[in-house]
């Protein structure tokens, strides 16, 4: 009986099934953890007011409940972790409350949640709305009635200020900077003692002066607008009676959670998720959105693919189709396979030493010498980071393509050659198209690896906060030398380095979820494309 059980193979089936189930369970568990923690944070929770037995009051969201043994009494007690926000008043965003200390709970309907440009959220009441110190509304009801309209105006004003800063002022600052470099170039390259040299210098100086004048005017306008917009203020009062005046323009979003219905909350939820996806980060990345990081990640992956796929495919074609099979080719193949196993930080350091310092440094000396000693290409940037990752993912593309080439049946090649096609024509028209699903598989694997890689990027161009995107509307549009932000690094930075980790932790989960989703989307697109190609070039199956 026992013998037949073992020899029947049943235990082995169980074993394999168990292994598969375990792997699946771990993946599902991880995804669930990220989903639960990442999706919940944007939901507007109700604000609870706790009156404590010592008479003090606390206003906040309940985040966690736990029981523990008190050290002094040895008794078990229940307590809650309350998000009180108001970092500028209390120093911390969270505090613990003991169940035994609470004498009364209620939900004040007029309590506001404010998302602010600085200092995180505010929980409390808005008691006054004023214009230049003159009250426009001075009781809670009136304030609540007038606030939405004023806030709309302020958001529009903030938008205009932003446009002015990034648009006109940004471009004129850049022109001034270029003109300065031009001036240095003239001084460096031309003899300013000659008449033509002096004339060139004068011309540059004049242009610089005219640009400076334009700039001064714009700056005056900007400062005027900023002062004007800051005249509209609201007076905040915390639950324990502390007051503070805040320019309305510094409020990103405001709502009264205890008054909202479920559909209203759903609407707000969607708006906050959208802000997270499309907004700029604030407060050392702990608040606001992650758009620059999404943009940087995707652009880097695209640049990486542009570099890695053609080179990888050409290498594979040479190795499989043209090279004489022998010990040398075998050695090359082994080397390529082993490259896939080299730790990614080694590539990072190679990228830093070769791309950034050697190649970038040389480019700077040849073409950007007037900007030295501050480097242009001789420092980390999106180009160098993409090339480093291209090196890292090259073996994946090579191996996948080679396998695809090997799978093309000999009969098809022979058929093509027999019909009079040259070797190149056979390759170009017959073999490569039927290999394209394999090439895409390689690309998928490469993208998935590149999008999740952080270590090599840290030394080749990823920064915590990049002032401008690597792709914008100023010439030459794609700025390959710029540093960029990346979702993986964002997770590392916010999770491990941010000073207020308790408040920032939800952002880490949300960002992780986003990174997983982006990789999933990239992969799904590639898989769909591959399946369509399979359907078209299914010669191998005939």
């Amino acid at each position: 009986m026992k013998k037949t059980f073992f020899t029947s193979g049943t235990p082995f089936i169980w074993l394999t099934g168990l292994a598969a189930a375990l792997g699946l369970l771990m993946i599902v568990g991880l995804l669930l953890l990220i989903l639960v923690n990442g999706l919940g944070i944007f939901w507007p929770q109700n604000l609870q007011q706790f009156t404590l037995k010592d008479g003090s009051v606390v206003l906040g969201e309940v985040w966690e409940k736990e029981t523990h043994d008190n050290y002094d009494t040895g008794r078990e007690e229940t307590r809650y972790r309350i998000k009180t926000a108001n970092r500028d008043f209390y120093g911390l965003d969270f505090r613990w409350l003991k169940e035994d200390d609470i004498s009364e709970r209620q939900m004040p309907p007029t309590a506001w949640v404010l998302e602010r440009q600085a200092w995180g959220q505010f929980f409390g009441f808005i008691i006054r709305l004023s214009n230049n110190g003159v009250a426009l509304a001075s009781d809670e009801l009136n304030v609540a009635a007038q606030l939405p309209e004023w806030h709309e105006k302020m958001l529009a004003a903030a938008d205009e200020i932003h446009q002015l800063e990034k648009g006109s002022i940004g471009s004129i600052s850049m022109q001034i900077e270029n003109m300065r470099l031009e001036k240095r170039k003239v001084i460096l390259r031309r003899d300013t003692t000659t008449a033509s040299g002096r004339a060139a210098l004068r011309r540059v100086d004049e242009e610089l002066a005219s640009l400076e004048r334009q700039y001064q005017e714009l700056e005056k306008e900007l400062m005027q607008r900023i002062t004007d917009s800051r005249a509209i203020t609201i007076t905040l009062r915390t639950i324990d009676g502390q007051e503070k005046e805040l320019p309305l323009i510094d409020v990103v979003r405001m709502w009264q959670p205890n008054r909202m219905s479920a559909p209203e909350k759903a609407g707000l939820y969607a708006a906050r998720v959208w802000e997270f996806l499309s907004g700029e980060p604030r407060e050392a990345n702990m608040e606001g959105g992650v758009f620059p990081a999404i943009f940087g990640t995707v652009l880097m992956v695209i640049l990486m693919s542009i570099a890695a796929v053609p080179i990888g495919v050409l290498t594979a074609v040479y190795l499989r189709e043209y090279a004489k099979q022998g010990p040398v080719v075998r050695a090359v193949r082994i080397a390529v396979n082993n490259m896939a196993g080299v730790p990614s930080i080694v590539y990072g350091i190679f990228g830093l030493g070769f791309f950034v310092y050697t190649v970038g440094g040389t480019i700077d000396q040849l073409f950007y010498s007037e900007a030295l000693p501050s480097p242009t290409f001789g420092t980390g940037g999106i180009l160098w980071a993409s090339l480093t990752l291209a090196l890292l993912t090259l073996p994946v593309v090579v191996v996948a393509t080679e396998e695809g080439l090997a799978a093309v049946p000999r009969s098809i090649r022979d058929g093509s050659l027999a019909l009079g096609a040259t070797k190149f024509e056979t390759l170009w028209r017959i073999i490569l198209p039927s290999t394209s699903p394999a090439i895409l598989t390689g690309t998928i694997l490469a993208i998935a690896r590149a999008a999740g890689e952080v270590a090599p990027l840290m030394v080749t161009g990823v920064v915590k906060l990049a002032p401008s995107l690597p792709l914008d509307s100023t010439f030459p549009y794609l700025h390959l030398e710029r540093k960029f932000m990346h979702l993986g690094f964002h997770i590392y930075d916010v999770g491990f380095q941010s000073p207020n980790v308790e408040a920032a932790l939800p952002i880490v989960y949300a960002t992780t979820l986003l990174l997983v989703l982006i990789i999933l989307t990239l992969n799904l697109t590639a898989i769909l494309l591959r399946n369509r190609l399979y359907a078209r070039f299914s010669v191998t199956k005939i």
Partner: protein
Amino acid sequence: MFKKKILIAALSLLALGSTTLQAQKISVDPALPEYKKVSGISGTINSIGSDTMNNLMTLWAEGFAKYYPNVRVQVEGKGSSTAPPALIAGTAQFGPMSRTMKKGEIDKFEKKFGYKPTAVPTSIDALAVYVNKDNPLTGLSLQQIDAIFSKTRRGGYDHAITRWGELGLTGPWANKPISLYGRNSASGTYGYFKKHALFKGDYKDSVKEQPGSASVVQGISEDKYGIGYSGIGYITSGVKAIALGKKDGQKQYTPTVENVTAGKYPLARFLYLYINKAPNRPLDPLVREFCLFILSKEGQQVVVKDGYLPLPAKVVNKTRALIQ
């Protein structure tokens, strides 16, 4: 001998036991001046130096750019030792350093320019020792910390402290092992703690090394029996910063702004910004304004936001006078 030490430690614990420590709100000195915008400031700020101050420099630069939208900023943070060469070569106007310049570095600077570099204190970094919020412990001496964290015990203890009972805790805590959290060796915090709290000794192998200050705090808030060190700004509601004393039996002080600036708290350091200022000659306006911005109410608020301690008005005013 040893028993006596424990007794003293326990006594000092008792003395402190009555005052419960609460997270304090750090605020800037109200006597600090506001920043006032001047006209005609433009150019590029180049900063090369400490990685500890990377975040701070970036935040200051952002705040400064609000006043002067055409000022461009480049911050490079690869370590304090990269600041002096950059200042000497002129590739940066600012050299942020989390320590003072060594004599050799000052000499090299003086050889090139004929005068010494100017150190502008910008903020204070106080290192706190954290325990879980449920831990009844209120304070430790540096010797006790050395016996907890170090395997060399240069502080003088003849045996390692491994259980909470040895620090005077009773009940279910007495037999629980102490679980250690620390930073990885690349961190400046690791080096500073080693030098000042471990008396240049070595860490125990059982210290769980974390990749960031925030993850030390996270670890301790999850681990009820944990202890670790990080900057005071990283405090959360899950942990408690305990008081520290220089020696066994001496009074122990919590890391508050007052105790730190009075020099009573033993683990604190200034964070400096080094500049090149020729004596009896006015500073370049851009450099001057950036320093004045840091030494203003707004600049010091950035310090609080980034998790460090702001300067008291006395220090600020002295430094402002030096620059202007």
